[in-house]
Protein backbone atom coordinates (compact mmCIF):
# COMPACT_ATOMS: atom_id res chain seq x y z
CA UNK A 1 0.00 0.00 0.00
CA UNK A 2 2.79 2.38 0.98
CA UNK A 3 4.57 1.76 -2.33
CA UNK A 4 1.53 2.59 -4.47
CA UNK A 5 0.94 5.74 -2.33
CA UNK A 6 4.50 6.92 -3.11
CA UNK A 7 3.94 6.08 -6.75
CA UNK A 8 0.77 8.19 -6.81
CA UNK A 9 2.38 11.25 -5.21
CA UNK A 10 5.34 10.89 -7.57
CA UNK A 11 2.89 10.97 -10.47
CA UNK A 12 1.24 14.04 -8.98
CA UNK A 13 4.59 15.84 -8.81
CA UNK A 14 5.37 14.93 -12.39
CA UNK A 15 1.95 16.18 -13.48
CA UNK A 16 2.43 19.42 -11.54
CA UNK A 17 5.89 20.09 -12.98
CA UNK A 18 4.64 19.25 -16.46
CA UNK A 19 1.75 21.68 -16.03
CA UNK A 20 4.07 24.46 -14.85
CA UNK A 21 6.51 23.88 -17.70
CA UNK A 22 3.73 23.79 -20.27
CA UNK A 23 2.28 27.02 -18.93
CA UNK A 24 5.59 28.83 -19.03
CA UNK A 25 6.25 27.43 -22.49
CA UNK A 26 2.91 28.81 -23.59
CA UNK A 27 3.74 32.17 -22.07
CA UNK A 28 6.83 32.18 -24.29
CA UNK A 29 4.78 31.48 -27.35
CA UNK A 30 4.15 34.14 -29.94
CA UNK A 31 0.92 34.66 -31.80
CA UNK A 32 1.91 36.47 -34.97
CA UNK A 33 -0.20 37.96 -37.73
CA UNK A 34 1.43 38.63 -41.10
CA UNK A 35 -0.27 41.12 -43.43
CA UNK A 36 0.39 40.14 -47.01
CA UNK A 37 -0.34 41.74 -50.35
CA UNK A 38 -0.63 40.38 -53.86
CA UNK A 39 0.95 42.68 -56.43
CA UNK A 40 1.59 42.53 -60.20
CA UNK A 41 4.72 40.54 -61.03
CA UNK A 42 7.87 42.65 -61.18
CA UNK A 43 8.42 42.24 -64.90
CA UNK A 44 4.75 42.20 -65.88
CA UNK A 45 3.98 44.60 -68.72
CA UNK A 46 1.46 47.06 -67.30
CA UNK A 47 -1.35 48.69 -69.27
CA UNK A 48 -3.60 51.51 -68.17
CA UNK A 49 -7.32 50.90 -67.82
CA UNK A 50 -9.89 52.92 -69.81
CA UNK A 51 -10.22 55.69 -67.26
CA UNK A 52 -6.43 55.79 -66.78
CA UNK A 53 -6.71 55.73 -63.01
CA UNK A 54 -5.64 52.15 -62.53
CA UNK A 55 -4.00 49.31 -64.42
CA UNK A 56 -5.69 46.59 -66.40
CA UNK A 57 -5.80 43.59 -64.15
CA UNK A 58 -5.01 41.01 -66.84
CA UNK A 59 -1.45 40.59 -65.60
CA UNK A 60 0.30 37.93 -63.58
CA UNK A 61 0.47 38.44 -59.85
CA UNK A 62 2.85 37.45 -57.11
CA UNK A 63 3.32 38.01 -53.41
CA UNK A 64 4.79 41.37 -52.48
CA UNK A 65 8.44 40.55 -51.89
CA UNK A 66 8.92 42.24 -48.50
CA UNK A 67 5.77 40.44 -47.25
CA UNK A 68 7.37 37.10 -48.16
CA UNK A 69 10.28 38.06 -45.89
CA UNK A 70 7.83 39.08 -43.18
CA UNK A 71 6.15 35.67 -43.38
CA UNK A 72 9.49 33.88 -43.28
CA UNK A 73 10.46 35.82 -40.17
CA UNK A 74 7.16 34.95 -38.49
CA UNK A 75 7.63 31.26 -39.28
CA UNK A 76 11.15 31.34 -37.83
CA UNK A 77 9.93 33.02 -34.64
CA UNK A 78 7.26 30.35 -34.29
CA UNK A 79 9.82 27.62 -34.81
CA UNK A 80 11.94 29.16 -32.08
CA UNK A 81 9.32 30.05 -29.49
CA UNK A 82 6.23 28.09 -30.36
CA UNK A 83 2.92 29.75 -31.04
CA UNK A 84 0.92 30.48 -34.12
CA UNK A 85 1.22 32.31 -37.41
CA UNK A 86 -1.88 33.71 -39.06
CA UNK A 87 -1.86 35.48 -42.42
CA UNK A 88 -4.27 38.06 -43.76
CA UNK A 89 -4.80 39.70 -47.13
CA UNK A 90 -7.42 41.82 -48.84
CA UNK A 91 -8.32 41.59 -52.50
CA UNK A 92 -10.30 39.64 -55.08
CA UNK A 93 -10.35 35.85 -55.35
CA UNK A 94 -6.92 35.77 -56.98
CA UNK A 95 -5.37 37.09 -53.77
CA UNK A 96 -6.12 33.79 -52.10
CA UNK A 97 -3.03 32.40 -53.85
CA UNK A 98 -0.84 34.40 -51.51
CA UNK A 99 -2.59 32.89 -48.50
CA UNK A 100 -2.38 29.34 -49.85
CA UNK A 101 1.35 29.73 -50.39
CA UNK A 102 1.75 31.05 -46.86
CA UNK A 103 -0.20 28.13 -45.42
CA UNK A 104 1.91 25.75 -47.49
CA UNK A 105 5.06 27.27 -46.03
CA UNK A 106 3.83 26.74 -42.49
CA UNK A 107 1.33 29.40 -41.51
CA UNK A 108 -1.48 27.97 -39.36
CA UNK A 109 -4.50 29.86 -40.58
CA UNK A 110 -5.53 32.53 -43.03
CA UNK A 111 -8.00 35.40 -43.26
CA UNK A 112 -9.13 36.65 -46.66
CA UNK A 113 -11.00 39.92 -46.99
CA UNK A 114 -12.40 38.97 -50.33
CA UNK A 115 -13.69 41.64 -52.69
CA UNK A 116 -12.19 43.50 -55.66
CA UNK A 117 -13.23 46.71 -53.95
CA UNK A 118 -10.40 46.22 -51.46
CA UNK A 119 -7.85 46.85 -54.20
CA UNK A 120 -8.81 50.49 -54.47
CA UNK A 121 -8.54 51.29 -50.77
CA UNK A 122 -5.79 53.60 -49.59
CA UNK A 123 -3.43 52.61 -46.78
CA UNK A 124 -5.61 54.10 -44.04
CA UNK A 125 -8.73 52.24 -45.17
CA UNK A 126 -6.76 49.03 -45.62
CA UNK A 127 -5.38 49.30 -42.10
CA UNK A 128 -8.90 49.99 -40.81
CA UNK A 129 -10.42 46.90 -42.43
CA UNK A 130 -7.56 44.74 -41.17
CA UNK A 131 -8.11 46.06 -37.64
CA UNK A 132 -11.82 45.34 -37.97
CA UNK A 133 -11.19 41.81 -39.28
CA UNK A 134 -8.94 40.88 -36.34
CA UNK A 135 -11.08 42.39 -33.59
CA UNK A 136 -11.14 40.09 -30.60
CA UNK A 137 -7.91 38.34 -31.57
CA UNK A 138 -4.95 38.44 -29.19
CA UNK A 139 -1.85 38.71 -31.34
CA UNK A 140 1.55 39.44 -29.79
CA UNK A 141 3.07 40.68 -33.02
CA UNK A 142 1.82 41.94 -36.35
CA UNK A 143 4.26 42.01 -39.28
CA UNK A 144 3.94 43.76 -42.60
CA UNK A 145 6.51 44.14 -45.35
CA UNK A 146 8.13 47.57 -45.20
CA UNK A 147 6.29 48.66 -48.36
CA UNK A 148 4.44 47.23 -51.34
CA UNK A 149 5.91 46.91 -54.80
CA UNK A 150 2.86 48.47 -56.42
CA UNK A 151 1.90 51.52 -54.33
CA UNK A 152 5.18 51.85 -52.48
CA UNK A 153 3.58 53.93 -49.69
CA UNK A 154 5.25 52.21 -46.74
CA UNK A 155 2.36 53.20 -44.46
CA UNK A 156 -0.09 50.39 -43.74
CA UNK A 157 1.88 48.83 -40.86
CA UNK A 158 2.51 52.15 -39.10
CA UNK A 159 -1.12 53.21 -39.51
CA UNK A 160 -2.31 49.86 -38.15
CA UNK A 161 -0.14 50.32 -35.06
CA UNK A 162 -1.67 53.73 -34.42
CA UNK A 163 -5.21 52.40 -34.89
CA UNK A 164 -4.54 49.57 -32.44
CA UNK A 165 -2.70 51.81 -29.99
CA UNK A 166 0.38 49.57 -30.21
CA UNK A 167 4.06 50.58 -30.38
CA UNK A 168 5.78 49.94 -33.71
CA UNK A 169 9.14 49.95 -35.46
CA UNK A 170 9.96 49.98 -39.17
CA UNK A 171 12.47 48.50 -41.58
CA UNK A 172 13.42 45.70 -39.25
CA UNK A 173 16.35 43.38 -39.89
CA UNK A 174 16.31 41.28 -36.72
CA UNK A 175 13.92 40.37 -33.92
CA UNK A 176 14.79 38.82 -30.56
CA UNK A 177 12.51 37.99 -27.71
CA UNK A 178 13.50 39.53 -24.36
CA UNK A 179 12.24 39.53 -20.78
CA UNK A 180 10.30 42.74 -21.36
CA UNK A 181 9.12 42.15 -24.92
CA UNK A 182 11.37 42.24 -27.95
CA UNK A 183 14.61 43.78 -29.13
CA UNK A 184 14.59 44.70 -32.81
CA UNK A 185 17.31 45.89 -35.18
CA UNK A 186 16.17 48.83 -37.20
CA UNK A 187 17.86 49.62 -40.51
CA UNK A 188 18.71 53.27 -41.09
CA UNK A 189 20.24 54.90 -44.14
CA UNK A 190 23.88 54.70 -45.14
CA UNK A 191 24.83 51.54 -43.30
CA UNK A 192 23.57 52.63 -39.90
CA UNK A 193 21.50 50.43 -37.62
CA UNK A 194 19.84 50.78 -34.26
CA UNK A 195 18.57 48.34 -31.66
CA UNK A 196 15.26 49.21 -30.05
CA UNK A 197 13.66 47.56 -27.03
CA UNK A 198 9.91 47.37 -27.24
CA UNK A 199 7.04 45.94 -25.22
CA UNK A 200 4.51 43.56 -26.71
CA UNK A 201 2.15 43.62 -28.47
CA UNK A 202 3.78 45.53 -31.31
CA UNK A 203 3.68 46.07 -35.08
CA UNK A 204 6.87 45.66 -37.11
CA UNK A 205 7.50 46.40 -40.78
CA UNK A 206 10.05 43.98 -42.15
CA UNK A 207 12.94 44.69 -44.54
CA UNK A 208 13.82 42.40 -47.44
CA UNK A 209 16.94 40.38 -46.86
CA UNK A 210 16.26 39.86 -43.15
CA UNK A 211 16.46 36.12 -43.81
CA UNK A 212 16.44 33.59 -46.64
CA UNK A 213 13.06 32.55 -47.94
CA UNK A 214 12.02 28.91 -47.72
CA UNK A 215 10.19 26.98 -50.41
CA UNK A 216 6.89 25.28 -49.70
CA UNK A 217 7.27 21.52 -49.53
CA UNK A 218 4.88 19.09 -51.20
CA UNK A 219 3.71 17.99 -47.75
CA UNK A 220 3.18 21.62 -46.83
CA UNK A 221 1.09 22.24 -49.94
CA UNK A 222 -1.02 19.19 -49.11
CA UNK A 223 -1.48 20.21 -45.48
CA UNK A 224 -2.43 23.73 -46.52
CA UNK A 225 -5.69 22.44 -47.97
CA UNK A 226 -6.93 21.51 -44.52
CA UNK A 227 -5.90 24.67 -42.72
CA UNK A 228 -8.59 27.19 -41.76
CA UNK A 229 -9.18 29.98 -44.27
CA UNK A 230 -11.74 32.46 -43.00
CA UNK A 231 -13.39 34.69 -45.58
CA UNK A 232 -14.49 38.16 -44.59
CA UNK A 233 -16.96 39.96 -46.85
CA UNK A 234 -16.73 43.67 -47.59
CA UNK A 235 -20.05 44.24 -45.84
CA UNK A 236 -18.63 42.94 -42.57
CA UNK A 237 -15.88 45.55 -42.42
CA UNK A 238 -17.52 48.36 -44.38
CA UNK A 239 -18.52 50.31 -41.24
CA UNK A 240 -14.82 50.71 -40.50
CA UNK A 241 -14.13 52.74 -43.63
CA UNK A 242 -15.53 56.01 -44.91
CA UNK A 243 -13.99 56.69 -48.29
CA UNK A 244 -10.38 57.25 -49.28
CA UNK A 245 -8.71 60.39 -47.99
CA UNK A 246 -6.60 60.58 -51.11
CA UNK A 247 -7.43 59.94 -54.74
CA UNK A 248 -5.45 58.88 -57.76
CA UNK A 249 -6.49 61.48 -60.32
CA UNK A 250 -4.63 59.80 -63.13
CA UNK A 251 -2.03 57.17 -63.84
CA UNK A 252 0.33 57.52 -66.78
CA UNK A 253 3.59 56.45 -68.31
CA UNK A 254 6.22 58.89 -67.08
CA UNK A 255 7.51 61.22 -69.75
CA UNK A 256 11.04 60.73 -70.87
CA UNK A 257 12.61 64.09 -70.13
CA UNK A 258 16.16 63.29 -71.07
CA UNK A 259 17.74 63.94 -74.43
CA UNK A 260 20.29 61.18 -74.34
CA UNK A 261 23.44 61.84 -76.32
CA UNK A 262 25.13 58.69 -77.56
CA UNK A 263 28.89 58.94 -77.78
CA UNK A 264 30.50 56.90 -80.53
CA UNK A 265 33.90 56.01 -81.84
CA UNK A 266 36.84 53.92 -80.76
CA UNK A 267 37.45 53.37 -77.06
CA UNK A 268 40.12 56.06 -77.05
CA UNK A 269 37.89 58.55 -78.87
CA UNK A 270 34.97 57.88 -76.55
CA UNK A 271 37.21 58.32 -73.53
CA UNK A 272 38.23 61.77 -74.80
CA UNK A 273 34.61 62.73 -75.54
CA UNK A 274 33.61 61.63 -72.05
CA UNK A 275 36.30 63.74 -70.43
CA UNK A 276 35.10 66.69 -72.49
CA UNK A 277 31.59 66.17 -71.11
CA UNK A 278 32.91 65.69 -67.60
CA UNK A 279 34.79 68.95 -67.80
CA UNK A 280 32.39 71.18 -69.70
CA UNK A 281 28.94 69.73 -69.00
CA UNK A 282 29.09 67.88 -65.71
CA UNK A 283 31.82 70.26 -64.52
CA UNK A 284 33.45 67.72 -62.26
CA UNK A 285 36.93 68.18 -63.68
Amino acid at each position, binding site marked *: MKQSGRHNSWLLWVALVAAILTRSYRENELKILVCMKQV*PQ*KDAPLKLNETANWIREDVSYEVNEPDAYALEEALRQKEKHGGEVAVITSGPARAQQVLREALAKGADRAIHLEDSAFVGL*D*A*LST*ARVFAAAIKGEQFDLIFTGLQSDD*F*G*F*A*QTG*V*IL*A*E*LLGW*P*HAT*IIMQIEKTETGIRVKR*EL*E*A*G*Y*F*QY*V*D*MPLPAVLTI*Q*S*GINKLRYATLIGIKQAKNKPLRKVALAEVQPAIS*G*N*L*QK*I*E*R*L*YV*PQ*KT*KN*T*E*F*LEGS*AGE*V*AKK*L*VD*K*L*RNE*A*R*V*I
Partner: protein
Amino acid sequence: MPDTILVVAEQREGKLNRVSWETVTAGQALASQTGWTLEAAVVGSGISGIASEVASRKAAKVYAVESPKLEPYTPDAFAFALKQLIESKQPKLVLMPHTYQVRDFVPKLATAMGRTVISDCVGYKKEGDKLVFTRQMFQGKLAADVSFGCEPPWFVTFQNGAFRGDKVETGAAAARVETVNVEIGDGVIRNRPQEVFKEAKQAVDLTQAEIIVSVGRGIKEQKNIELARQLAEALGGEIAASRPICDSGWLPMDRQIGSSGQTVAPKLYLALGISGAIQHIVGMKGARTIIAVNKDSEAPIFEIADYAVVGNLFDIVPPLIEEVRKAKATG
Protein backbone atom coordinates in the same frame (compact mmCIF):
# COMPACT_ATOMS: atom_id res chain seq x y z
CA MET B 1 -4.67 84.51 -41.49
CA PRO B 2 -2.93 83.37 -44.65
CA ASP B 3 -2.56 79.69 -45.38
CA THR B 4 0.80 78.28 -44.40
CA ILE B 5 3.08 75.55 -45.57
CA LEU B 6 5.09 73.89 -42.80
CA VAL B 7 8.35 72.20 -43.74
CA VAL B 8 9.52 69.83 -41.03
CA ALA B 9 13.28 69.72 -41.41
CA GLU B 10 15.07 66.67 -40.15
CA GLN B 11 17.87 66.61 -37.64
CA ARG B 12 19.61 63.50 -36.42
CA GLU B 13 21.81 63.55 -33.36
CA GLY B 14 22.27 67.27 -33.47
CA LYS B 15 22.98 67.64 -37.18
CA LEU B 16 20.64 68.89 -39.86
CA ASN B 17 19.99 66.21 -42.46
CA ARG B 18 21.07 67.77 -45.78
CA VAL B 19 18.01 66.40 -47.57
CA SER B 20 15.93 68.91 -45.60
CA TRP B 21 17.15 71.66 -47.96
CA GLU B 22 15.36 69.85 -50.79
CA THR B 23 12.12 69.99 -48.82
CA VAL B 24 12.64 73.69 -48.12
CA THR B 25 13.15 74.24 -51.87
CA ALA B 26 9.89 72.40 -52.51
CA GLY B 27 8.17 74.52 -49.87
CA GLN B 28 9.53 77.72 -51.38
CA ALA B 29 8.32 76.72 -54.84
CA LEU B 30 4.87 75.82 -53.53
CA ALA B 31 4.71 79.03 -51.50
CA SER B 32 5.51 81.18 -54.48
CA GLN B 33 2.94 79.41 -56.66
CA THR B 34 0.13 79.40 -54.13
CA GLY B 35 0.86 82.61 -52.31
CA TRP B 36 0.86 80.74 -49.01
CA THR B 37 3.33 81.54 -46.25
CA LEU B 38 6.28 79.24 -45.72
CA GLU B 39 7.28 78.19 -42.22
CA ALA B 40 9.61 75.49 -40.99
CA ALA B 41 10.07 73.39 -37.89
CA VAL B 42 12.92 71.47 -36.32
CA VAL B 43 12.12 68.84 -33.69
CA GLY B 44 14.48 67.63 -30.98
CA SER B 45 16.33 68.64 -27.84
CA GLY B 46 18.80 71.51 -27.76
CA ILE B 47 18.20 72.23 -31.45
CA SER B 48 18.12 76.03 -31.45
CA GLY B 49 21.35 76.06 -33.50
CA ILE B 50 19.79 73.92 -36.20
CA ALA B 51 16.66 76.05 -36.16
CA SER B 52 18.84 79.11 -36.77
CA GLU B 53 20.53 77.31 -39.65
CA VAL B 54 17.16 76.67 -41.26
CA ALA B 55 16.14 80.25 -40.54
CA SER B 56 18.95 81.52 -42.78
CA ARG B 57 16.87 80.39 -45.76
CA LYS B 58 13.86 82.22 -47.07
CA ALA B 59 10.98 81.41 -44.74
CA ALA B 60 8.67 83.47 -42.58
CA LYS B 61 9.35 81.68 -39.33
CA VAL B 62 11.06 78.61 -37.90
CA TYR B 63 9.74 76.68 -34.90
CA ALA B 64 12.22 74.97 -32.64
CA VAL B 65 10.10 72.21 -31.11
CA GLU B 66 11.86 71.30 -27.89
CA SER B 67 11.69 68.62 -25.26
CA PRO B 68 14.41 66.53 -23.63
CA LYS B 69 12.20 63.53 -24.43
CA LEU B 70 12.64 64.19 -28.14
CA GLU B 71 16.21 62.90 -27.97
CA PRO B 72 16.72 60.13 -28.95
CA TYR B 73 14.18 59.95 -31.74
CA THR B 74 11.11 57.80 -31.13
CA PRO B 75 7.95 57.74 -33.23
CA ASP B 76 5.77 58.20 -30.14
CA ALA B 77 7.53 61.41 -29.07
CA PHE B 78 7.82 62.91 -32.55
CA ALA B 79 4.21 62.20 -33.47
CA PHE B 80 3.08 63.63 -30.12
CA ALA B 81 5.13 66.82 -30.41
CA LEU B 82 4.26 67.51 -34.04
CA LYS B 83 0.56 66.85 -33.45
CA GLN B 84 0.63 69.54 -30.81
CA LEU B 85 2.48 71.98 -33.06
CA ILE B 86 0.23 71.36 -36.04
CA GLU B 87 -2.96 71.65 -34.00
CA SER B 88 -1.69 74.94 -32.63
CA LYS B 89 -0.35 76.54 -35.82
CA GLN B 90 -2.80 74.90 -38.25
CA PRO B 91 -0.72 74.78 -41.44
CA LYS B 92 -2.53 73.80 -44.59
CA LEU B 93 0.30 71.71 -46.00
CA VAL B 94 3.00 69.83 -44.07
CA LEU B 95 6.07 68.78 -46.05
CA MET B 96 8.82 66.38 -45.04
CA PRO B 97 11.65 64.53 -46.77
CA HIS B 98 10.89 60.82 -47.30
CA THR B 99 13.64 59.56 -45.00
CA TYR B 100 13.60 56.34 -42.99
CA GLN B 101 12.90 58.41 -39.90
CA VAL B 102 9.96 60.26 -41.46
CA ARG B 103 8.53 56.97 -42.75
CA ASP B 104 8.70 55.72 -39.19
CA PHE B 105 6.40 58.37 -37.71
CA VAL B 106 4.50 60.47 -40.27
CA PRO B 107 1.81 57.84 -41.03
CA LYS B 108 1.24 57.59 -37.27
CA LEU B 109 1.04 61.37 -36.94
CA ALA B 110 -1.40 61.72 -39.83
CA THR B 111 -3.61 58.89 -38.58
CA ALA B 112 -3.67 60.35 -35.06
CA MET B 113 -5.00 63.54 -36.64
CA GLY B 114 -7.50 61.70 -38.85
CA ARG B 115 -5.55 62.61 -41.98
CA THR B 116 -3.50 60.96 -44.69
CA VAL B 117 0.02 61.18 -46.15
CA ILE B 118 0.83 61.22 -49.84
CA SER B 119 4.29 59.80 -49.55
CA ASP B 120 7.43 59.54 -51.65
CA CYS B 121 6.36 62.23 -54.12
CA VAL B 122 8.57 63.34 -56.97
CA GLY B 123 6.80 66.59 -57.73
CA TYR B 124 3.56 68.49 -57.71
CA LYS B 125 1.23 70.29 -60.09
CA LYS B 126 -1.13 73.15 -59.50
CA GLU B 127 -4.33 72.59 -61.47
CA GLY B 128 -6.48 75.66 -60.96
CA ASP B 129 -6.92 75.84 -57.21
CA LYS B 130 -6.12 72.19 -56.68
CA LEU B 131 -2.75 70.78 -55.80
CA VAL B 132 -1.90 67.31 -57.04
CA PHE B 133 1.21 65.42 -56.04
CA THR B 134 3.05 63.16 -58.40
CA ARG B 135 4.42 59.86 -57.19
CA GLN B 136 5.85 56.79 -58.83
CA MET B 137 4.02 53.50 -58.70
CA PHE B 138 4.83 49.96 -59.75
CA GLN B 139 8.51 50.47 -59.08
CA GLY B 140 8.66 53.54 -61.28
CA LYS B 141 6.95 52.05 -64.31
CA LEU B 142 3.98 54.38 -63.92
CA ALA B 143 3.42 57.82 -62.44
CA ALA B 144 0.33 58.85 -60.50
CA ASP B 145 -1.07 62.31 -59.81
CA VAL B 146 -2.71 62.13 -56.40
CA SER B 147 -4.97 64.66 -54.70
CA PHE B 148 -6.26 65.03 -51.15
CA GLY B 149 -9.88 64.13 -50.42
CA CYS B 150 -9.89 65.44 -46.88
CA GLU B 151 -9.56 68.69 -44.99
CA PRO B 152 -6.12 70.13 -44.23
CA PRO B 153 -3.60 69.61 -42.77
CA TRP B 154 -2.30 67.74 -45.79
CA PHE B 155 0.82 65.65 -45.29
CA VAL B 156 3.28 65.14 -48.13
CA THR B 157 6.73 63.55 -48.17
CA PHE B 158 9.14 64.14 -51.02
CA GLN B 159 11.56 61.60 -52.46
CA ASN B 160 15.29 62.27 -52.11
CA GLY B 161 16.43 64.13 -55.17
CA ALA B 162 12.97 65.29 -56.22
CA PHE B 163 14.02 68.86 -55.54
CA ARG B 164 17.41 70.51 -55.60
CA GLY B 165 18.76 71.31 -52.18
CA ASP B 166 21.34 73.60 -53.72
CA LYS B 167 18.58 75.72 -55.25
CA VAL B 168 17.14 76.73 -51.89
CA GLU B 169 16.70 80.49 -51.64
CA THR B 170 18.27 82.54 -48.91
CA GLY B 171 16.13 85.09 -47.18
CA ALA B 172 16.92 88.80 -47.12
CA ALA B 173 17.08 88.55 -43.35
CA ALA B 174 17.07 85.58 -41.04
CA ALA B 175 13.61 84.25 -40.25
CA ARG B 176 12.33 84.54 -36.73
CA VAL B 177 12.92 81.46 -34.57
CA GLU B 178 10.15 80.62 -32.11
CA THR B 179 10.83 78.00 -29.47
CA VAL B 180 7.90 75.73 -28.74
CA ASN B 181 8.37 73.70 -25.58
CA VAL B 182 6.43 70.46 -25.52
CA GLU B 183 5.45 68.53 -22.41
CA ILE B 184 5.63 64.82 -23.11
CA GLY B 185 4.12 62.87 -20.24
CA ASP B 186 5.23 59.52 -18.86
CA GLY B 187 3.85 56.57 -20.75
CA VAL B 188 3.81 58.32 -24.13
CA ILE B 189 7.10 56.82 -25.27
CA ARG B 190 7.06 53.05 -25.42
CA ASN B 191 10.19 52.26 -27.45
CA ARG B 192 13.64 52.38 -25.90
CA PRO B 193 16.16 52.98 -28.67
CA GLN B 194 19.85 52.21 -28.16
CA GLU B 195 22.82 53.97 -29.77
CA VAL B 196 22.87 54.24 -33.54
CA PHE B 197 25.85 52.36 -34.95
CA LYS B 198 27.51 51.56 -38.25
CA GLU B 199 28.03 47.95 -39.12
CA ALA B 200 30.44 48.21 -42.00
CA LYS B 201 33.85 49.35 -40.90
CA GLN B 202 34.23 51.97 -43.62
CA ALA B 203 30.60 52.89 -44.01
CA VAL B 204 30.08 55.98 -46.12
CA ASP B 205 27.05 58.19 -46.57
CA LEU B 206 26.71 58.15 -50.35
CA THR B 207 24.02 60.82 -50.19
CA GLN B 208 26.82 63.27 -49.41
CA ALA B 209 29.02 62.24 -52.37
CA GLU B 210 29.20 64.61 -55.35
CA ILE B 211 30.64 62.02 -57.74
CA ILE B 212 29.67 58.36 -57.80
CA VAL B 213 31.03 55.55 -59.99
CA SER B 214 28.62 52.65 -59.78
CA VAL B 215 28.90 49.04 -60.96
CA GLY B 216 26.32 46.46 -61.90
CA ARG B 217 26.29 42.86 -63.10
CA GLY B 218 28.28 43.89 -66.17
CA ILE B 219 31.39 44.07 -63.99
CA LYS B 220 31.30 40.27 -64.15
CA GLU B 221 33.74 39.44 -61.33
CA GLN B 222 34.63 40.89 -57.97
CA LYS B 223 38.23 41.56 -58.98
CA ASN B 224 37.07 43.82 -61.82
CA ILE B 225 35.64 46.27 -59.31
CA GLU B 226 39.23 47.50 -58.93
CA LEU B 227 38.86 49.15 -62.33
CA ALA B 228 35.83 51.11 -61.17
CA ARG B 229 37.64 51.98 -57.94
CA GLN B 230 40.51 53.49 -59.92
CA LEU B 231 38.09 55.56 -61.97
CA ALA B 232 36.34 56.76 -58.82
CA GLU B 233 39.68 57.69 -57.32
CA ALA B 234 40.78 59.55 -60.43
CA LEU B 235 37.56 61.56 -60.36
CA GLY B 236 37.65 62.09 -56.61
CA GLY B 237 34.41 60.22 -56.13
CA GLU B 238 32.89 57.27 -54.30
CA ILE B 239 32.22 53.77 -55.52
CA ALA B 240 28.74 52.26 -55.39
CA ALA B 241 26.78 49.34 -56.81
CA SER B 242 23.42 47.92 -57.71
CA ARG B 243 21.82 45.35 -55.44
CA PRO B 244 23.12 42.09 -56.99
CA ILE B 245 26.73 43.19 -56.42
CA CYS B 246 26.07 43.82 -52.72
CA ASP B 247 24.00 40.66 -52.31
CA SER B 248 26.99 38.70 -53.62
CA GLY B 249 29.15 40.42 -51.04
CA TRP B 250 31.43 42.02 -53.65
CA LEU B 251 30.81 45.41 -52.07
CA PRO B 252 29.35 46.10 -48.63
CA MET B 253 25.64 46.83 -48.28
CA ASP B 254 26.19 50.51 -47.56
CA ARG B 255 27.44 50.91 -51.15
CA GLN B 256 24.08 49.84 -52.51
CA ILE B 257 22.09 52.38 -54.53
CA GLY B 258 18.40 51.82 -55.10
CA SER B 259 15.03 51.49 -53.46
CA SER B 260 16.40 49.19 -50.79
CA GLY B 261 19.75 50.90 -50.63
CA GLN B 262 20.56 54.56 -50.77
CA THR B 263 18.94 57.22 -52.90
CA VAL B 264 21.47 59.71 -54.19
CA ALA B 265 21.44 62.87 -56.25
CA PRO B 266 25.12 63.61 -56.95
CA LYS B 267 26.56 65.96 -59.54
CA LEU B 268 27.76 62.97 -61.52
CA TYR B 269 26.59 59.35 -61.59
CA LEU B 270 28.64 57.08 -63.78
CA ALA B 271 26.91 53.71 -64.26
CA LEU B 272 29.14 50.88 -65.47
CA GLY B 273 27.49 47.64 -66.58
CA ILE B 274 24.21 48.55 -64.90
CA SER B 275 21.08 47.59 -66.84
CA GLY B 276 18.84 50.15 -65.14
CA ALA B 277 16.24 48.06 -63.34
CA ILE B 278 13.62 50.31 -61.78
CA GLN B 279 14.65 49.44 -58.23
CA HIS B 280 18.07 50.85 -59.04
CA ILE B 281 16.92 53.86 -61.05
CA VAL B 282 14.71 55.16 -58.28
CA GLY B 283 17.86 55.52 -56.23
CA MET B 284 19.89 57.65 -58.66
CA LYS B 285 17.67 59.32 -61.25
CA GLY B 286 18.05 62.61 -59.45
CA ALA B 287 21.72 62.85 -60.36
CA ARG B 288 22.56 66.04 -62.24
CA THR B 289 24.53 64.23 -64.95
CA ILE B 290 24.16 60.54 -65.66
CA ILE B 291 26.65 58.71 -67.83
CA ALA B 292 25.96 55.06 -68.65
CA VAL B 293 28.21 52.45 -70.20
CA ASN B 294 26.56 49.17 -71.19
CA LYS B 295 26.98 46.55 -73.91
CA ASP B 296 23.21 46.32 -74.43
CA SER B 297 21.73 49.14 -76.49
CA GLU B 298 18.26 48.30 -75.10
CA ALA B 299 19.32 48.65 -71.47
CA PRO B 300 16.72 50.75 -69.60
CA ILE B 301 19.52 52.83 -68.05
CA PHE B 302 19.81 54.63 -71.39
CA GLU B 303 16.30 56.05 -70.86
CA ILE B 304 17.61 58.34 -68.16
CA ALA B 305 21.22 58.81 -69.20
CA ASP B 306 22.50 62.18 -70.35
CA TYR B 307 25.46 60.60 -72.10
CA ALA B 308 25.39 57.03 -73.28
CA VAL B 309 28.11 54.69 -74.44
CA VAL B 310 27.00 51.41 -75.97
CA GLY B 311 30.08 49.30 -75.60
CA ASN B 312 32.24 47.05 -73.47
CA LEU B 313 33.14 48.74 -70.22
CA PHE B 314 36.44 46.84 -70.09
CA ASP B 315 37.43 48.59 -73.34
CA ILE B 316 36.19 52.02 -72.31
CA VAL B 317 37.18 52.38 -68.66
CA PRO B 318 40.99 52.00 -68.86
CA PRO B 319 41.48 54.80 -71.45
CA LEU B 320 38.90 56.85 -69.56
CA ILE B 321 40.95 56.60 -66.36
CA GLU B 322 44.01 57.76 -68.32
CA GLU B 323 42.20 60.71 -69.85
CA VAL B 324 40.74 61.78 -66.51
CA ARG B 325 44.17 61.66 -64.87
CA LYS B 326 45.65 63.68 -67.73
CA ALA B 327 42.86 66.26 -67.58
CA LYS B 328 43.22 66.69 -63.83
CA ALA B 329 47.00 66.99 -64.08
CA THR B 330 46.82 69.80 -66.64
CA GLY B 331 44.19 71.56 -64.49
